């Protein structure tokens, strides 16, 4: 089995020690950092996301895999020149105004990062104006919003309306999720995508951006 294949499996298993030593081996053997990243780490996290979305894997396992990837990244990051690291796209994410819940939002951010997206996390209690201001500043491919309370869901609609007023609704894909959020609500407020969980968030993000 190649080192990369073994690394891939170690990340899926969440075996941090093995993943780190295999990454070090690959770096020492002169493997390209981009190859280690794409085939060893990102491909593994894609698999983790799929298994999570289908109910084969559970939250603690997903966290462990993400941790393994983060530790490996520390070893290969110095290999990349500034700006060299190819990103799948930019994502601005946050929990909407009036809502302090961050667990689901953090899981989504973590899985998106694992899939190769560049994340700007605005935290919790984010107003429509802040979302739009950051969207103008960062020009993300995806604007992702989370809500855990039915009372704060209208904040999603407000953000989309504010994007429209600012004339940038067409320039960004809006994705929403959170326990009370449904696919119906997403289409009602004209969000571009709905993700019921962190694994699906990656799958849906790639779908709306046309990434295979």
């Amino acid at each position: 089995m190649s080192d990369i294949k073994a690394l891939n499996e170690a990340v899926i298993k969440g075996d941090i020690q093995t993943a780190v030593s295999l990454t070090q081996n690959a770096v020492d053997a002169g493997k390209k950092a981009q190859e280690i990243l794409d085939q060893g780490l990102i491909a593994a996290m894609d698999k983790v996301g799929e298994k999570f979305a289908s109910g084969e894997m559970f939250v603690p396992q997903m966290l462990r895999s993400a941790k393994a990837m983060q530790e490996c990244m520390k070893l290969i990051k110095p290999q990349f020149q500034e700006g060299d690291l190819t990103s799948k796209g930019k994502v601005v994410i946050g929990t909407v105004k009036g809502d302090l819940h961050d667990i689901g939002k953090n899981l989504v951010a973590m899985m998106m990062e694992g899939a190769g997206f560049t994340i700007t996390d605005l935290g919790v209690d984010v107003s429509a104006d802040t979302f739009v201001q950051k969207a103008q500043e960062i020009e993300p491919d995806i604007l992702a919003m989370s809500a855990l309370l039915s009372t704060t869901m209208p904040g999603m609609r407000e953000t989309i309306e504010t994007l429209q007023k600012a004339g940038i609704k067409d320039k960004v894909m809006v994705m929403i999720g959170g326990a009370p959020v449904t696919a119906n609500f997403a289409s009602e407020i004209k969000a571009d995508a709905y993700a019921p969980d962190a694994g699906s968030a990656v799958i849906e993000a790639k779908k709306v951006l046309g990434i295979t």
Partner: protein
Amino acid sequence: MLIVGEKINTSRKRIADAVEKRDASFIGKVAQSQARAGAHYIDVNAGTFLEKEADCLCWLVETVQSAVDLPLCLDSPSPDALIAAIKHHNGEPMINSISLEKYRFSSLLPVVTRHPCCVVALCMAETSMPATVEERVQVGSDLIQKLTGQGIPIEKIYVDPLVQPVSVDIRMGNAILEAIRNIMNDFPGVNTICGLSNVSFGLPSRRLINRNFLALCMAYGLSAAILDPCDAELMSTLLSVEMLLGRDEYCENFIEAYQNGRLTKA
């Protein structure tokens, strides 16, 4: 142990459909089955109806109270919906919930001081969710002091320690349990309450986890729970734990449940 029956919540599809169609007979049956299973309060939650939440909640209050002779737990993060619903309620409801979040606190405080009611004090800080035992106890203490300072009797206060998933942070289970113990010790007479299912988010076999979590919470002093009283395994756990903790004189309730066929076999 005070039991709040959780089933009338529109996040469950059959309940949402019944509320949509104003099917009073279905809602009434769900209320009655929970009452028969031992609920002391019936929770009503119409949060998924968003803008129509207040209307739906008011309808639920009237519908459930015409089916069962029990007080209700009015369940919403929206002060406006709670304020509307309380006017339709007969007797003393439980208001679920107030927290330190500014709008929620300032708009509900006059309501819970004016109407005789029990109040759930959710350990949510003004701008963040508590993570540790100390943060939970701090927010809980703040809420208890503010509410009793306004003349609310301490035994009408039910502190909810804010249950978070162990799947995300393995220390969460202990943090909740210790918070229950500390709050019960620091404020004699106060109650603690929680829902069970958040603890098992992201894990398999959730009902098993929820049941065992209930037993642990009870051992740490939890005095009320929001749960499905029609879940025979859960209620068997509850009854046996009450007995083991010495709160069921002559094991009367446990034996009676057995004789009525309400205990699970194993």
